[in-house]
Each structure stands twice: as C-alpha cells, then as structure tokens.
C-alpha cells in the first residue's frame, strides 16, 4: 500500500483563513489544543497569518508522522508506508519527493522561485494516471485544495467529453480523499459540488471508499454569509483521516487460555485490506485438515499475521523477541505438522460475529526460505459449509439453515420441465428403477410420487400418459412376476391420475402399502 499526498500550488492557496493576533491569549490557547498540527507555529510577525498552503503542509506532516506507525513489508523487512509528496498546478505534478523533509524544503525553495499558478484538475488526474501505473499496489491519494479560485479549473474539467473524463477517472486501484480548505461560505459551494463529482467519478455509483473530507463542523457558521475557519476542527478532521488511512490493526489471538497479540498486514481497515471490520479477539476453534479446507468456502482476503508486542505500553523490560509468544509457537508447530504427509493442519479461527477464517503457515515467494503465518478470511457469514460453524450461530441461520440450492446433489428438487432433457431424464430414471423391482420398491414409489406432485402442480395431466408409455415399454422387459404386477398396478393408478380422478392421492402397492404424495421432503 502506498500514499500520494498532493497539495494545490495556486494563488488561492496563499490566502489566509485566520485572523492572526499573536497577543491573543485565546489564540495561544487554541494552538495548545492542537493534537496533530502542532508544527503550525506562530509566525514571527503577527500580521502574517497562516495560509491555506501552510495548513496543508502541516496536515501533510501530520499524515507523514502517522504513517510511520503503519507497517508495510518491503524487501523482507517491516517498514512504514511509502508516501509520495507533490504539488499540483497547471503543469501537473511538481516538487515530487518521497520524504516529507525533502518535500518541505523543496516547497520553501519553490515559494521563492516558482510562481503560483492556477490549479488544473485535468493535468492533475492525467499525471496521477501515469504515476499510479508505476505504483504496483493499491494507493491512497490525498488532495489538499482550495475552495476558491477554482472556477477555471472546474470549467476546464467539465468541458471534457465523457470519454476524456473516463481516461482521467476512475483512478486505477486508488482511493481518493479530497480535503478542501475553506471557510464554508456560499462561494465555496460550487467547488464542493465539483469535488463531490470527482469522488463519484472515481468510485462509481453506490460506492463510497473515497471521501470528501469536509464536515459542517470544519467551519463554524453563524449564517450562510458569515462563517469562519476553525483550526481545532481542522485538526480533528486531519486526525480522523490519518486514523482512517494509517490505522494498524491488532487483535488478540486466543487458543483456549493461551493468548498472544498479533497484527495483520495489510490492515483490514484499509483499502488494500478490504475495509473489513474484524473483531479484536480472534478465537481458535480447532484445526482442520488442509485437504478439507480447500473444499470449503473460498477465502476472500489474505493477511499476514505478524506477532505483536504483548506489552504495548512497555510494561515489560524484556526484549520482546526473547519472550515466548503464542504466534511463533503456533507457527513452529504448524510447520512441523506440515512436513508430515496427510497431516498439514490449519487453525480455524473466529474473527468476528459469525465470521471465520483460517491461519496457515506460508513461505515467501521469492526465496522460499522465510516462513510466516497468514490469515485467510472467508466471506462474512455463519456458514463455511452448508451448516453453521458454531452452535451459537444457529439462530442466525435457522431460517435458511438447510439452504440447499436446486442443483445440489443433496437437494430433492425436481427440475422444471423447460426442456425435453428434463422430461426424459426423470422418466428415464423411473424406468431404470422399475427394472429393479421388487427390490427397489420404496425408491420406485418415491420417484413416482415426486413426478406426480410436479405434474399435479403444473396441471400437466398429459405427462401421466408419457409416464405410462415408458412403463409399458419396461414392463415388457421384466421377468419377475411380482415386478410386472406392481408395474401394472401403478399404471392403472396413473391412468386415474391422468383422468383427474385421484389428484394428490396416495399410490398403493399391490401389498396394500400406501405411499402418500407429500410424505417425502420434495
């Protein structure tokens, strides 16, 4: 997973949104309440308030710091998420850098030497399309932009044909987060509508992984005309976005009384992780043979299981690598079992309410020398076979507890007669069973009743004639007297059915045993 954080490079971004009074104690207090953009220092001269660009840069720094805690596996080691920083103007992306410090320094130089232009979203998305082709993983694209001064950029984008727009959006395998910076006054509305359009174009109908990070609480409003930018709310909004983008996921893995903390990579809360809301307690329910698992529901997502410090607050003064941990312990055991033929086992895990997965050992695909554990998550649902996994899930599945599809071999569904094959197949089956009379008498009457029920249900009385003709042919080939008598008896009853004299009545064998039409579960 990687991130691309872009800042608009335009004249409107140089505008200030705050009234800056260095001597104001209220302002000082306000600065001290900031959690994340503390680096927004007071300007040396109180007459120069921070501009939108300053706010964007400091928010970028906040995101950069948060991303340091988000693990990513690169070249065999754990690293933080890779981020690309850049500005965008009329000429596409500029000041591209992979380190925040270099980006910040580049901006400082550019402020002096590079003229501010107007934003152009057409060139922005063109450049992004090219950049994302080089990024091989899913990406977050965060765009800090101004809510004013973008009329020309908006009209430029809207003047494109639909094919031209399709070439720009949606971005391939990327989640778009737009952060407009403005006061929320009437003049901002057009820009906000446009940004929402971009979000919709990126995500498609009905999807909402991308987001317009604009909240009514972003600004405080006394009236539509009078609104002012609130720094604390901006700070909170950036904090929320950072948590969304860079929230590592940890859970406690339980095997009975044994437990150990683990982290999943990629985080299930992220785009690449599929925005899954797992429980924070994973319970191992037991083990399954690998051969059995391969025939269960197909797992949907794969996560690497990384042992995590059992004492995240530093309660222990021991090197965590030297402290026994359940995850490597299980890993070693599963690896030993994997070396035995017919014994590779996986751990069946409950990862949420009525939600399951399994943990198995794996090797790295490059060298095949390193080994680890992966979690394969099944789709949500209490069943991974045709029955629920835990007895506490029975309520959730009781309505469709035996939800067997029509084509399943366990189903007693009779095909509807929409083709000649359906008719001949069923009649052929009854004919074949009749050859084995009197041994297969039960099966013979069961099959006959299934077909009778369908014929009555479709008012298809002509079907009985076809059935009688088929049985007549078989009767000629029978050698057993009892079988012949049974077939004769049945044909007589089928004639009555065809003449609508015995609708839904039971079939009676020559020995007097009744076979009701509705006793079976068809």
């Amino acid at each position: 997973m990687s991130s691309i954080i872009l800042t608009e490079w335009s004249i409107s971004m140089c505008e200030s949104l705050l009234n800056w009074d260095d001597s104001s104690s209220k302002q000082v207090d306000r600065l001290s309440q900031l959690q994340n953009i503390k680096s927004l220092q007071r300007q040396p001269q109180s007459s120069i308030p921070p501009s939108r660009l300053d706010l964007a840069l400091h928010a970028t720094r906040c995101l950069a710091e948060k991303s340091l805690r988000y693990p990513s596996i690169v070249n065999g080691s754990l690293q933080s998420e890779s981020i690309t920083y850049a500005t965008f103007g009329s000429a596409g992306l500029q000041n591209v850098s992979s380190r925040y410090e270099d980006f910040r320094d580049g901006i400082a130089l550019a402020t002096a030497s590079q003229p501010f232009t107007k934003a152009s979203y057409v060139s922005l998305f063109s450049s992004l399309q090219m950049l994302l082709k080089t990024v091989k993983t899913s990406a977050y694209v965060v765009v800090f932009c101004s809510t004013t001064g973008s009329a020309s950029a908006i009209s430029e984008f809207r003047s494109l044909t639909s094919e031209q727009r399709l070439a720009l959006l949606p971005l391939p395998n990327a989640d778009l987060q737009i952060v407009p910076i403005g006061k929320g006054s009437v003049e901002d509305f057009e820009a906000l509508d446009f940004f929402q359009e971009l979000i919709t174009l990126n995500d498609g109908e009905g999807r909402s992984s991308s987001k317009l990070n604009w909240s009514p609480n972003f600004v405080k409003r006394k009236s539509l005309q009078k609104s002012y930018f609130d720094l604390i709310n901006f700070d909170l909004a950036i904090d929320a976005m950072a948590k969304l983008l860079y929230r590592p996921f940890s859970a406690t893995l339980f095997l009975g009384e044994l437990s150990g903390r683990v982290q999943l990579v990629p985080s299930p809360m992220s785009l690449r992780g599929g925005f899954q809301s797992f429980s924070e307690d994973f319970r191992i329910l037991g083990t399954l043979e690998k051969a059995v698992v391969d025939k269960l529901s197909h797992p949907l997502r794969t996560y690497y299981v990384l042992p995590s410090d059992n004492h995240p607050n530093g309660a222990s003064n021991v090197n965590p690598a030297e402290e026994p941990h359940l995850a490597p312990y299980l890993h070693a055991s599963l690896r030993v079992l994997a070396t035995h033929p017919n014994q590779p086992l996986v751990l069946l895990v409950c990862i949420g309410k009525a939600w399951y997965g399994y943990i198995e050992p794996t090797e790295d695909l490059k060298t095949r020398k390193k080994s680890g554990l992966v979690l394969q998550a099944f789709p949500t649902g209490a069943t991974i076979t045709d029955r629920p996994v835990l007895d506490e899930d029975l309520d959730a599945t009781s309505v469709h507890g035996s939800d067997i599809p029509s084509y399943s071999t366990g189903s007693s569904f009779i095909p509807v007669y929409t083709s000649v094959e359906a008719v001949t197949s069923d009649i052929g089956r009854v004919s074949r069973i009749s050859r084995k009379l009197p041994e297969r008498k039960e099966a013979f009457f069961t099959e006959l009743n299934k077909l009778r029920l369908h014929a009555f249900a479709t008012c298809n009385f002509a079907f009985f004639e076809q059935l009688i003709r088929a049985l007549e042919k078989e009767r000629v080939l029978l050698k057993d007297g009892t079988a012949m008598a049974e077939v004769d008896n049945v044909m007589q009853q089928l004639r009555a059915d065809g003449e609508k004299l015995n609708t839904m009545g039971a079939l009676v064998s020559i020995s007097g045993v009744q076979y009701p039409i509705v006793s079976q579960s068809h």
Partner: protein
Amino acid sequence: MSTRTENSRSEERKVARPNAFRTVFLLENSTALWSSAPGSFEPVSEESTLSSRSSATSFVAQTEWTWITWILEAVFEYCRIAWDIFPSYGVSIHGSGPNDETLKLYPTSGQPDQPSSSTTRFRDLRIAMSAVSQLERFAKAASMSISSAGSVFESIRDLENDELLSAPVYYENIENVSSDRPFYVRIVIVTTEKDELVLVNSVRESIMRQNIGYITRFEIAVFICSSPEAKAPSYKKIDGLNDAYITLYYISTGGTELLEAFKSCLAWDLRLSRTIVTDIPMREDVKTGGAASTSYNVDMFHPCLITEQKTQSRPGGTPLRMKWLKPVKGTTFAHVPLDDALPIRTTPSDPTTRPTQCLVGYVLDGNAVLLESQEVEKSGVKICKLFLSGGKICLLQLKSGTERVVDDIPSLLEVPGGKVTNYRVKEMCTLLKTIVLDPKSQFPIPSQALSRQKKMTSYFPFIYSDSLAYLLPQFVPLFEVVASPEKKDRSEWHAARNAIEEVLDMNAQNTLLPGLNTHVVLSTIPSGTRRAESYAVLWVELDMILEAYSNSSEGDSVRSLRDYLHARLPTPLRSELRTLILDRVRRHSYPGSNTENRVGTTVPENTTEGAQGLYKRKARPEFEGRLKFGRMGKLYQNLQKLEKGQREDTTLIHASLEL
C-alpha cells in the same frame, strides 16, 4: 463527511441486491389458458439426446401442453432461479376464483410469505399450486377483469405493514433511492387479453381504487398469451399514476417463448446477467474404443458483475462468454479478488442438460476453475473463478495481473517471540492434533468443545522453562499415558503411578530438580528457598495437568490417577501456588534469560546491598545444558535433526526433539 459508520458503509456497498422487493403473480383463469399451447417438445431420438442412456427417450412423442402448464412451469423456473440466488426473495401467487375474486394460491395461510427452508419450499409450492387444477371448472371465457386485478392490488395493500413495503423511506427521502437497493414491487399478470388499452386501464384503476400508488413503485409485467402477432415488449409509464410502469410481453409462438420472457423479466427484477461458460472439456466415452474430448457450453445466471471500471454491468442483455481456462486447487495468493467484489451465487439456466450436470458436479466436488472473458473490452470483466462456497456454486471476479498480498515476509528474529529457541513444539503439535474438526460431523461446534479446549490449555507451557513437570524424564510414561488419545492398558496406567512414586522418592530425598533458575515462578523466589519450594510447585503443576486431561476419553483413569496423587502427597497442595502459576502462564511474563537482574519477590526490604547480591546468581546450567548441545539451532530450521546417538536416548528425546 458521511455520517454512516465505516462498517455499515463497507457492508452496504458490497451486498448484491435485487431491483424488486418481491414478485406477485396473478394468473388469469380463462378457458383459453386451459387449451393447448404451441411450441411443445418435438419427438427426440435416442441418438440425439445426451442426457439419457435408457430407451425412454424414443417415446417422447409430440406432446401438447396447455398454456396453464407452461405458465406454471415458467413460474416454478422463476422461483427456482430466484431462490438459488436470493434465498429469502418473496414470491406470492394468486389466481382467480369463480366470482373473479382473487385466490391466494401461494403462500397459503400458515405459510410465511418468505420461503423458510429450501428442502420444503419447493414442496410447499407444488402442494399449493396443485390447487390450480381445481380452478379449471371455474374458467371463464372472458379474460382478466378489473376486479380480479383489483383484488391482487388489494392484497398488496394488506402487505403495507410488511417491512419490505416500508418503502415510504423511498418517498421520504428520494435521494436514498439508488440502483443499490430494491425499489419496486413486481406484479406479473398472465392473461389472454389482447387489448392494451383494457390492460393498462385495468391496472390503473386497480391501483387508484386501492389507493396504494404512494406505497412504492410498481413495475407490472403483463404476459399476453396467444398473441396474434409477434411484437417486441413495450415499456411505458402508466398515465395518471405517480410511479407505475407497465411492460407488455407478446407471446405468440408458445411455451418456450413464454419461458424466455419470464427469464428476461426475472433478470431485471433480480438484477441478473448471464454468463456462458464455453469450451468445457468433457470426455465422451466412444463406443468404438478410446476417448474423445469435446467441448460444451453451460449457461449460468448470476447477479451482475462489477467491471474493472467499477461500474455494474447491465441486467439481462447479451450473455457474457467466459472460456474455461484452467482448474485451480486450493488457495493461490495470486488470485486477488477485485475491489468490492464478493462471491456471487450462480445457478444454471438449464440444470438438466448433461454438460450442466457435469460442470455442477465438478464444482460440487470441491473443484474450482478459472474463467477468462472473451469480450474484455465490451464487458470490462477479465478473469473469474467458479468455485464452491458454503455449498453453493459461486463466481468471484479476480484482478487481472497477479498482485500478491503476501509476497515478502520479514525475518522472524525481529518479531516478538522470534528469538526463543525452546518452544514446546511437540506438545503443541499433540494438542493441535487432538482438536481436529470434521465439518461434516462436528459442525456446528458445541460450546462444550470450546470449554474443553480451555481446560486443556489451562496449564500449557510455551517453553521448557515454563514447567518442571515436563522436564523430568521420570514423568514421560505418565504423560504418554495421559496425553495420548489411544486407550491404554492397565500396565501403562500402572507405569504412570510408578512414575509418581519415583518422584515422591526424589521429594523425600530432596533431590535437586532441573530448571529451577529459569522456572517462571521459582526464578522469582530467592535461591535459598527455591529448592524447598520446588517440589510444592512441581506437584501443583502435575495436578493442574492431570485436571486438564480429566475430560479426555480416558477421563476416569486420569481422575483416578489424580486421586492417587492427592492420596500419596506428603503435604496438601497449596492453592496460592496454583493461582500464581496460572497467572504467570496467562500473562506469559517470562522473566527472560538474563537472571542477573532478577530479584526475588521475597527479598526483605532492609536487606543490605551486599546481601542482595546473594540473590543475584547466574543461571545454574546443570539441566539447561541438556538443551545446549549445539543442536538448538534457530527456531525454524533443523527441526527434525538429531545426532544419531541421541535418537535412542529417551531422556533427551522428550526435551530436544524439536530443536
């Protein structure tokens, strides 16, 4: 920002939903429908059919089925496909009684409006529909009347409190209506009335009379049987009504055309599209000898696919052709699902053909196959996987290319627990083998099984230094008897008791036990009292282990062994030690290998610094030496290697086999 939570946002966006809340069928009861319909089956010869090997095929002569039979078959087919993909989709069927009153045929009173279980719902449907034959005597020469249609809409009004029809949310917030949610009720009317104006007026007046136009949007599909001319379906809004639309299907050629029209209507109602799986290799037995391979196609219904451009494909329409690419076994990390794609259920369009049965049987056996689209640019779909999921055949769209989620693994020496070299791997393997599940016989897992797991792990050491009992070779016969699931004979249980006696003798002689300095509890006790406490800890450990295994298959014998232990102990077991051991094991607070910094918890406060130094001793290696023969290696390497001479040394096997 959206006020919806992330969880609901991700769930809502992924679930495939039909367009319709439910479908209501109204079947006209006119004499015309009880007459023969054209388009019946042609006679087939034995050679031309693939399905049957019996001689029964040759008798399937020209059959003439009535319109009503075709209609009912089409209704059953609609329900079959709907319930295979959306098991809880609601369907109700109405007919006309002798006085044009509407008779509710399905579900009947006492049956829920939604199917309860697939094993009975088709049976219930058939039983209910068998009542249709009784209506023939009430068949009228005239076609559908306004009053019979009106009665159907009246019954819809009765459903107003049904949560499915609580679509006032549709009207309260029109913005919430989107293609992601069901947004109409489907009414299907089968009639012989040919006058379009009469049909439209009948529907309009019925809706207005019942005053139900505000409830939801109505999509009325009228199938005009025995239409004199072939015409394409027409779709229009009903004038004078807010949100009601009518589609007229003209059925002129007979039953098969009616069936296809029903399927076309179904595709819109459930937002389905079709995929033809092509080039399925099937080996045909050739009578002359040898085997020939021929390719077949199978037509499947499924919810619309999501294209790689993140748009959903159009319901109905031209089927997508996907070629059989290759079978796949198990999980492959290269198969990454498309973003927002979930497995979607499929059902064959015609389940009775042999190619369909072969494909379905292949997948139901647990096999999976990759399919490759032959119209990538047009459909936006590239690769799909057909496989079994939860007992149903599903289709999952995969990302093109091979983005692997797990391609690179970090070195385990950096992660917590990665540098520990004395894990009790053998014991854990044994434990894992005792909790193997069989989905066929053991699902759903009862809660007692999980409490047994808790018991078995209530005392389960991670590493050798977590336990004294496991370090004693004298106890090997006891653990083999207790932990092994096979039934043991009397001599083996006797050996277990002898093991206890042997260690009791050691206790009496105060023999030094191994591993005291690294033990999870004893290492925190000053070394002067450590030896004295060691046997007390040992017996508590043994008692806890026996308690954990007392619910095994040999539970009676284990409990008997435990009782024997209690009877033979020189002093009673101390409960505070039990609590301490459990607490330490649960918290996994292993003091670490650096013993110099470990100070006993019972060191008096006023002890001088010099005296304190007495408590800081280095580890005594007399037993740990057993683990340091140079075969320890790293945790994940050389797991099976032992020097030749040591394989016969049973005292070493127990401790060092996994190293």
